[in-house]
Structures are given as C-alpha cells and as structure tokens.
C-alpha cells in the first residue's frame, strides 16, 4: 500500500474510532451534552435537540464510512463535526464560560484550546477520506467489527478495575 494511502487509511480509522466512542457514549447518556449546550447559551429545547443531533451525526459519519457512501459526504461530515467542536470551544472561551466538554460523555474537562487545536486533525481526516483507497464492503465491515471489538475491550478494562475496587471496599467494610 502506498504511503499516502496508508496514512489516509490510518487517519480515517482513527477519526472513525474517536467518533464511534464519542457518539456511543453521548447517545447512552445525553445529559452531559445537553448540559454543555445549555452552558454555551442554547435555550433548553435547542440544547435537547443538540444532545441528540451531535451523537447521531457522529454515528452517521461512521456509518457513511463503513457503508461506503460517497466519500465527499463522509469528508464533509468529518469537517463539519470538527468545526462544530472547535467553534463551541472558541465560543466558550470568547464568552468566558467554563463549560464541561462532554467530549466522550460525562467529563470534568472543560471546553478550550484542545478542541480548537483538534480542528486541523478533523479537517485532515476529512481530506484523508477523499484519498482513501478503494475497498469492498466486506473489508470495511471487517475492519469496523475488529475496531469495535477493540473499543469494547478498552471500555471493559476500566469497568472491571472499578468493580475490583468496589469489591475491595466491600471487603473492607463488611469483611466478606
């Protein structure tokens, strides 16, 4: 595989993985994102819409990549999401609001320079999408299934650790 094609594939896979994790976490619990949107000044009813629209847009972007939709559509979605994230962070900084980022669900991290700095990466992922080498649906769904399995494992490990801590506390408190 030529270097450029490999770099494009890597960027798109990384971007897709980030959007999958972020979209699934936000769709599972919409309240942190709704709270962020409210914190940015959106009226409550629009914040609720944003709380659904953003994760759906993230997951739709992933779906377009896996399904093999026109590349410019996926590229436009990558870029649009990057612009939404960066402009939200820029708006929060410009207006002096301290708003939780809710980037991957509930988080104490604030919106700020990190999201602004990530904009070129999202644009790069969008550009990489247009240069992605041709592939069959079977190949794409295979890569997605493997990636999704890896994400599930990455999600499970800290959960199991939290469970072990909880068990330790139970033993400490109750002795059994």
């Amino acid at each position: 595989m030529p270097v450029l094609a490999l770099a494009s594939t890597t960027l798109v896979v990384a971007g897709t993985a980030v959007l999958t994790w972020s979209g699934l976490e936000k769709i599972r619990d919409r309240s942190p994102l709704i709270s962020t949107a409210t914190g940015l000044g959106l009226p409550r009813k629009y914040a609720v819409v944003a709380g659904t629209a953003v994760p759906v847009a993230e997951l739709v972007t992933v779906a377009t990549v896996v399904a093999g939709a026109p590349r410019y559509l996926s590229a436009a979605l990558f870029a649009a999401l990057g612009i939404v994230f960066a402009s939200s962070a820029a708006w929060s900084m410009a207006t002096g609001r301290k708003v939780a980022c809710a980037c991957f669900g509930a988080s104490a991290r604030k919106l700020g320079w990190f999201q602004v700095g990530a904009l070129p990466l999202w644009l790069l992922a969008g550009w990489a999408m247009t240069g992605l080498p041709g592939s069959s649906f079977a190949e794409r769904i295979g890569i997605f299934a493997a990636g999704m399995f890896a994400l599930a494992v990455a999600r499970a490990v800290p959960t199991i650790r939290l469970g072990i801590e909880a068990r330790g506390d139970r033993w400490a408190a109750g002795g059994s």
Partner: protein
Amino acid sequence: MATPVLFTIVALLAIGEFLLFGALAEAYRDLKQIREYSGLIDRPMPVELGPMQDQPPSILGLHPGLDSAVQAVAVYLDRRCGTCQSIVRSLNGGIPEGIWLVIIDESVDEAFTWLGDAGLEKGSPVASRVMITSPDAVEQQLGGVATPLAIEIEHGRLTRAKIITSIRQFYGLVPATRTLAPQVPEGVIG
C-alpha cells in the same frame, strides 16, 4: 455473503457490549461516590510519625533485629478492633514474610490465646515475629494510636505509618523485595 453478515453481527454485539460496560462503569462510579461520602473507601490512612520518623525501630520497643532490617513492616493489632480480628483470623498459622506483629495487650498469655485461635502458637518459629506490648507503652511511645497501625521500616529506620482498614491492605504491605527477590540457590554466592 456470509462473511459481511457475520462481521455485522460481531460489530453489533461489540456495540452492545460497549454500551453495557459504559452503563456498568457509570453505576460503579456512582457507587464510588456514595462510598466516598460514607467513608467506606478501602484506602490506607497515613499517620504522622512525628519525632519517631527516621529513628531505629528499637526506640519503639520493637525487636532489635529490625534495626538492621532492609525492609519490614510492624503491624500493631488490638483484640478489641474488628479489622484486627479479621486480620488475625486470616493468618491461618503463618505470618507473611517481612511482617512483624505487635499485639497491644496487658497480658502476654491472653494475647497468645487470641493468636492461638488463628494457629499462631507461643514458642513456634513463626511466633518469633510476634511482639507483645502494653497499651501504656504504646501510648508513651506513639501517643494515641488507632489500630491496625502499620509502620514501615526501611534500612533500619521508621519511614512511614498508616492505618490499614482491611485484610486486603494488610497483605498489600508484604514488602516487594520479599516477593520479588530472585531465588538464589543455596551455595551460590552473588
């Protein structure tokens, strides 16, 4: 045709697993918050050694052999403390390497009767790492102490002290050098 369907099923199952583990992690975080508010976190509580810091262990009336120990832990236990009772019950006739027990009791016989229930008999080789001290002596040397109190000794000096709140933490005290030291066969030097 079968392969893409199979991959789709795997991906969907992985998505389900991801969501379920996410929900479980959130539930555990909620529980952790509740435990933190209730003071039920299994975490040792550091204790200031004050003027005893960096002094030889014998200054506390501990075994003189500890003054030359590279790494050891003296654990103060009291019959009246529930966690101490759990720790003693778990010993099952042995004391982990590097751990010394300091039993706070007025009577040596009563202390060994208590330890005897856990299989630690007076005069047994393991009991050489058991010391008995009176509450008054402890009060004089350390001030008021809460048990189980673990005092760590490094290179013959008292370095840290902490109150341990569980059996798990007691076994976590076993010095790493005892568990990780390479086993050199007898007769081999260096």
